[in-house]
């Protein structure tokens, strides 16, 4: 960005070769982003992300209950985790919940986003209403749904034909279903917002041309809208995946990892180990494993989707 702006005047008025060189180099010295420009961000990033990450990595090789000095135990925490059935289960559950989130939320938010991108007044009003869950904290949302889904005094008591005995939090399948539902309820609006913005940015001429060619609404959607939203799909999916891998509050409040360990996802397991069991070494190992997993998954999504090539979405160019 900055490079373009500062170099632009130089490029526009090339008069005499003799004067160009010093001008360009002085502009470079003054305007080009050097290392110094990145220094504040680098310092903050190092201080608040890299340094703690390194410390967590170190801690994962130690045994520490929060009192006294940590003791170096080598790979003990890691080998314990590798043999821990709950850890393996938690990884599986985390992936399952993440996948559920992506599979449910992506189509839903594309449809809603494209719909909300229209310009009628009622859509604008409805969109605003619809975005309200986004304003609530995950904690508030979870407390709210826990109360609404109470088997004796909540919705299940009134709709026994649908909920049976209402034991939603007492069985694995339904407990996972509730978790997926609540995060869908809360985060679909956010992804809808992304798609709404992206859909509005699609040039109208494409639709006009399609209409002249006789394409109906469905063909327009599948052949123009959806391809044009490709980069937004990738962005939204990465957010969903990384968000899914680090989900925490909903589990903490809705199920506490239960019944048994049936909804104990990795992030919650880390919290249990470190802050309830005071086994900070094991907690650090889980945290580090999560960071590594999230990074790998993000990289895969970026690579597979071709997002890193930054192909243009402009009309006529592909």
């Amino acid at each position, binding site marked *: 960005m900055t490079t373009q702006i500062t170099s632009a005047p130089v490029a526009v008025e090339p008069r005499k070769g003799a004067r160009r060189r010093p001008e360009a180099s002085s502009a470079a010295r003054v305007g080009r982003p050097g290392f110094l420009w990145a220094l504040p961000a680098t310092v903050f990033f190092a201080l*608040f*992300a890299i*340094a*703690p*990450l390194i*410390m*967590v990595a*170190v*801690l994962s090789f130690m045994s*520490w*209950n*929060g*009192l*006294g*000095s*940590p003791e170096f135990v080598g790979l003990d925490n890691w080998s314990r985790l590798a043999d821990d059935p709950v850890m393996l289960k938690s990884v599986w559950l985390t992936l399952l919940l993440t996948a559920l989130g992506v599979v449910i939320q992506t189509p839903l938010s594309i449809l809603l986003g494209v719909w909300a991108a229209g310009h009628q007044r009622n859509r604008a009003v409805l969109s605003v209403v619809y975005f309200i869950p*986004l304003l609530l904290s995950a904690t508030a949302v979870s*407390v709210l749904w*826990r*109360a609404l889904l*109470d*088997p*004796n*005094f909540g919705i299940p008591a009134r709709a026994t034909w649908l909920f049976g*005995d*209402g*034991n*939603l*939090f*007492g069985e694995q399948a339904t407990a996972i279903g509730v978790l997926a539902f609540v995060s869908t309820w809360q*985060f679909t609006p*956010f992804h809808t917002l992304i798609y709404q913005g992206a859909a509005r940015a699609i040039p109208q001429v494409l639709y006009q041309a399609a209409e002249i060619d006789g394409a109906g609404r469905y063909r327009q959607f599948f052949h123009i809208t959806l391809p044009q939203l490709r980069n937004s799909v990738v962005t939204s999916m*990465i*957010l*969903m995946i*990384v*968000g899914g891998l*680090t*989900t*925490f509050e909903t589990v903490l409040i809705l199920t*506490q*990892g*239960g*019944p*048994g*360990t049936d909804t104990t996802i990795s992030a919650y397991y*880390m*919290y*249990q180990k470190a*802050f*309830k*069991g*005071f*086994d*900070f070494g094991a907690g*650090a190992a889980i*945290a580090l494993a*999560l*960071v590594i997993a*999230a990074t790998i998954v993000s990289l895969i999504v970026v690579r597979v989707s071709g997002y890193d090539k930054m192909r243009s979405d402009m009309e006529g160019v592909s």
Partner: protein
Amino acid sequence: MKTRVRLPRLLACGATVALALSLTACGNGDGGGSSGDGKIHVLVYGDASNKVEKQIVDKFNKTSDVKAVLDTIPGADYQQKLQTIINTPQAPDVFFNWGGGSIQPFVKADLLMPLDDFIEKDPGLKANFLPSVFNSAVVDGKSYGVPMRGTQPILLFHNKQVLDKAGVKPPKTWDELLDAVKKLKDEGVTPISLGGGDRWPTLMWFEYLYDRVAGPELFEKALKGDKDAWASADSKKALSMLKELVDAGAFGKNYDSVKYTNGSSPALLASGKAGFELMGSWYYAQQQEDAKEFAETDLGYTAFPTVQGGKGDPTNVVGNTNNFYSVLKKTKHPEAVAEFLKLMYSDEFVKAQMAIGNLPTTTSTRKFLDTAADPEYSRFQYDLVAKAPSFQLSWDQAYPPSAITPIQQAVQQFFNGQLDADGFIKAMQALPTE
């Protein structure tokens, strides 16, 4: 939204750990302590009981040169926050705890002062408290805590109206309880309300039944690391009785979706949808607040039923014996702390606690029972605790903190059938005991 917040937060959690790590590394051997300023800091769990604690601190400060400062930590994070600061220069001189396993890591880390010297100088520091309560803050034969606040035995509460309608009397024996379950079920109500979503209410059933069937010795052995205790015949008998109760439909089918902490399981009892609920003595005050009318006319309470042929004394009690004040070894004013602790058995303290509904565990409490908010209820509780040969501290508090989650998971899984008796026994044998 989600991602932007979450990942950094995860890192920040790690950072907190890491930073705390570096802090303690620097702070070791320093022994500074907050008491360098001529004050003693008293750290307590922040809630309604702080009213009395403030009163006591004010009284203490009137006569003492070393002034006491009351610090409160609100909310359920007390134990976590305490553990974070206890080894730093911000550590208090005196702090609130649950005795048993909750202070065991601190004792092990050599942070706490045994109170035996204090007791030698003033035997009243021990003699004025009920022994069954005082003993739950004894670790390795040394006293580490003085009781404060009130005792919280677990009682079997019931809805008088619901029981009358089903022709059921409050059960005195286990068989009567099973019979009551059947009759209540026929009436179409959930026999026993259970906040299984919170898990610790489920644990209460285990604590009582094990005590009645095997006596307190089984758990004491298990706590000391004797894994055979869990596999004993008594243990298996207790489990089979629990299984029988669950299978009889005593708790209905959706108890794991019900919580105590959001008022759902108490509401079942108050609204007449359930007959019984097993809960700590604080339940009474809870119902007074949530369902005043019900609490005043229809809320009944009894001790846990006896078990025929059980080895445990039928008058044994389980629950939270009381909360305790423990003292940090590095306090600069041990004399002032000793004086402060003496206030815990003063008449003024006892009266002030009773006025807010707490039941202190001093031997003098009996004298003041008539001044309690509800004398009848206080008397019932006091007699129960005073006569009890053993007062078993809740399992998840008797064990060290790292065992809390595995215990709660195991009891939940046994109730919902994910674990059979052998699976439960195995889970309990795997618990860390230190």
